[in-house]
């Protein structure tokens, strides 16, 4: 199976969400994009359209992008209603025009979710994800305090499953795809990665409680098991991790209810 990658020319109409800022009204604007090369990436097409807009004295379309190889998680368009576009398991920057037909109208919007306020045009603010990680998405280990790396063997299946979860690029497509704008897949991926490893056990309960608590506080919705998140995820992270997180959360809630409530860390002997 060798797909057809010979270059073809195509012309499309881009229907793009334009909004000057969070308080400004937004609207769709049509832009013709002509004589494109089918081997061009979707973002390269936006580059070309933006250069044309600039030459015409208009302000180019603001869009988030950086690595353009599907790993940094910066790009964030919803294309024809699908976060990251028509492909499966790829980000917007890995979408190529060979996925579209000559004459297509392509609707391009920002990721939409209450917890991701709009910045400008196609750019949204996803700092809520950082706040969730800051609440507990880590293992507390000071630099220099680590034992030899091979002192704790990790069964290969556990390490592999942790890696599956760790592949998350923090793009927010899961949130944009979810009718509840839930961040469960994002949170579950980090909770599962660290919960699967022996190094993550000491803070396992505390971590899941803190991260889920922060997620709720920031205005993300709940999971109603539609699995749109996994379908939209550029790294195809499995919704099974959500079930794993729910189990962890339940256990942690029960255990925390049984624990003394005092947070006192002790006054020190000296």
């Amino acid at each position, binding site marked *: *199976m*060798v*797909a*057809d*990658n010979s*270059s073809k020319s195509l012309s499309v109409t881009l229907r793009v969400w334009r909004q000057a*800022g969070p308080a400004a009204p937004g609207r769709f604007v049509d832009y013709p994009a002509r004589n494109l*090369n089918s*081997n*061009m990436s979707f973002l390269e097409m936006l580059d070309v359209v*933006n*250069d044309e807009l*600039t*030459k015409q*004295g208009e302000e180019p379309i*603001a869009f988030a992008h*950086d*690595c*353009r*190889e*599907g*790993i*940094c998680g*910066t790009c964030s368009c919803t294309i024809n209603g699908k976060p990251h576009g028509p492909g499966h398991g790829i980000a917007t920057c*890995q979408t*190529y025009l060979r996925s579209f037909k000559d004459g297509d109208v392509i609707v391009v919007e920002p990721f939409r979710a209450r917890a991701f306020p709009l910045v*400008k045009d196609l750019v949204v*603010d*996803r*700092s809520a994800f*950082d706040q969730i*990680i*800051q609440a*507990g*998405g*880590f*293992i507390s*280990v000071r*630099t*220099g*305090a*680590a*034992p030899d*790396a*091979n002192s704790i*063997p*990790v*069964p*290969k299946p556990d*390490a*592999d499953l942790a*890696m599956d979860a*760790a*592949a998350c690029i*923090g793009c927010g497509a899961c949130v944009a795809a979810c009718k509840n704008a839930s961040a469960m897949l994002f949170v579950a991926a980090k909770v599962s*990665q*660290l919960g699967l*490893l022996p*190094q*993550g056990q000491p803070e396992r309960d505390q971590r899941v409680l803190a991260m889920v608590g922060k997620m709720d506080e920031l205005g993300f919705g709940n999971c109603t098991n539609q699995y749109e998140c996994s379908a939209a995820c550029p790294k195809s992270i499995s919704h099974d991790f959500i079930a794993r997180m729910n189990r962890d959360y339940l256990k942690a809630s029960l255990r925390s209810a049984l624990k003394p409530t005092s947070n006192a860390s002790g006054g020190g002997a000296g």
Partner: protein
Amino acid sequence: MATLDSKVPSGPLADKWRKHKADIKLVNPANKRKYEVIVVGAGLAGSSAAATLAELGYKVKSFVFHDSPRRAHSIAAQGGINAAKNYQNDGDSVYRLFYDTIKGGDYRSREANVHRLAEVSVNIIDQCVAQGVPFAREYGGLLANRSFGGAQVSRTFYARGQTGQQLLLGAYSALSRMVGAGAIELHTHSEMLDLVVVNGQAKGIIVRNLITGEISRHAADAVVLATGGYGNVFNLSTYARGSNVTAIWRAYKRGACMANPCYTQIHPTCIPVTGDYQSKLTLMSESLRNDGRIWVPKRKEDRLKPPASIPEEDRDYYLERIYPSFGNLCPRDVASRAAKRVCDEGRGVGESGLGVYLDFADAINRLSESGVRERYGNLFDIYHEITAENAYQVPMRIYPAVHYTMGGLWVDYNLMSNLPGLFVLGEANFSDHGANRLGASALMQGLADGYFVIPYTIGDYLASQRPGSRPSADSAEFRGAEENVRSLTDRLLATKGKEPVSHFHKRLGKIMWEHCGMARTRAGLEEALKLIPALREEFWANVNVPGSAETMNQSLEQAGRVADFLEFGELLCLDALKREESCGGHFREEYQYPDGECKRDDANFGHVAAWEYQGADRAPLRNTEPLNYEFVKMSVRNYK
């Protein structure tokens, strides 16, 4: 003239770092919170430094132009990270990693720095595993390794093809922990646009908020730059689109020396260019060279034939032929030039003729398709997305592309620049890799600098600064620097020419690639040194930057960075012109052995060239730091 004292400690090589750590000054724990440290950039070096300095008790302010620290381009490193753990029992050691790195760098790095790097490499793996980095493991649960170019041992740790991502997320988690604890003040969407120097010392930065356009002044007791490499001066590269030279270039214009800018790395295994609309080149990890075999047809006439129809005897596995002992795993500069040579001979494959095959047929026979998929599945997927070709069935086509820059701001053994108080880490500095970096060593250096070097060495500087002595951000120096930033912004917006910024970036990239790419000549460099100032002049007359400065304006961001590349590119070519030898990634056609290998001139160029800014209208000054090889004999690299 700048003073370039490397401050390399005396004594036996293996004892230098230990001795130095015992000798340098400390800041007492109660005083640490009185010092503020600015860290710019949040890739491996910046995140690890910010997290560790905050753990120590310093007040840290972290600045990134991205929307999150997790986006920094370290995230895209695929293949792995080296460490002298010798878990494979294959004869590795700190000395061997040191030696491979010195030799790989073509004897143009500092012995003492490289030895320290090899020493702390083992601590990095420990640290990352403790953070929950899911490195690849063997069935017994212990860590797995693979081989990388320029080494004959398996010392590379990896997390599938996403090692950089996993290490960065580890460092990001450490940084986030300290942000959550209130020990780091994190400024995202914040681009450093000037360095503030007060009484000859770096004491702050000027920052533009990329969402609101607000310009702010930030004072500190020390400034740490970890802002990455400058490969986008070539426009097309494997770098992220946002990667830029601005932070280090503006520091250079404030007096920090720029060392060896001509040392650029061209990576041999990237997906070839397909059209002039292209914005980016994608790397196929060097780890693929463990199992893939590189070849071109022996005869020009066969170059467009389907590869499967070319019988074994008509194929030239040229790396295995020329370099039998290292074969497909020879260093990057060597492999890139070999690819260029066979393509120049007319034997390159693909429509453009600028490509060679990376063939997995033998590996699939040996390991089965699923075995290859387990090792490299995500890389094959990336290749398929970009080219629509199935590399399990037809060989990949690859060609060299700009990938890393070994040059950067000059630093001493403490990673401090010639400007006191300015520290430079990771790819942004010039140290450790000499004229060529070995695969899986960038991640090692970024984390070594951030986790294990700067936490010690910054204390030595801060101990000399009275607590509370940092200048006010309202002082004349700060206001002057802010004014400098505002006037540059105004000038960019006021030009109102006809061409978008990308037009100039593409043209600069073509000049750089053609005249200062894989092979350089005196005539070509002299030509580039005429073309670049002319292009720069055209930019300032004809660039069109729409919009305003008071809002998110991506054209304005880009314009500032390209304006800096248009100045920096000239210095890069000048450095390449003045280095009249070939070494590592710097290949001057005039200086080569009959077999096409680099001909170094140790007597005249066994030094670091550190350029010093002399003002806009004057040529920069070329200072030198001699490289004294006390422990290793400088010799001709041999990978045959």
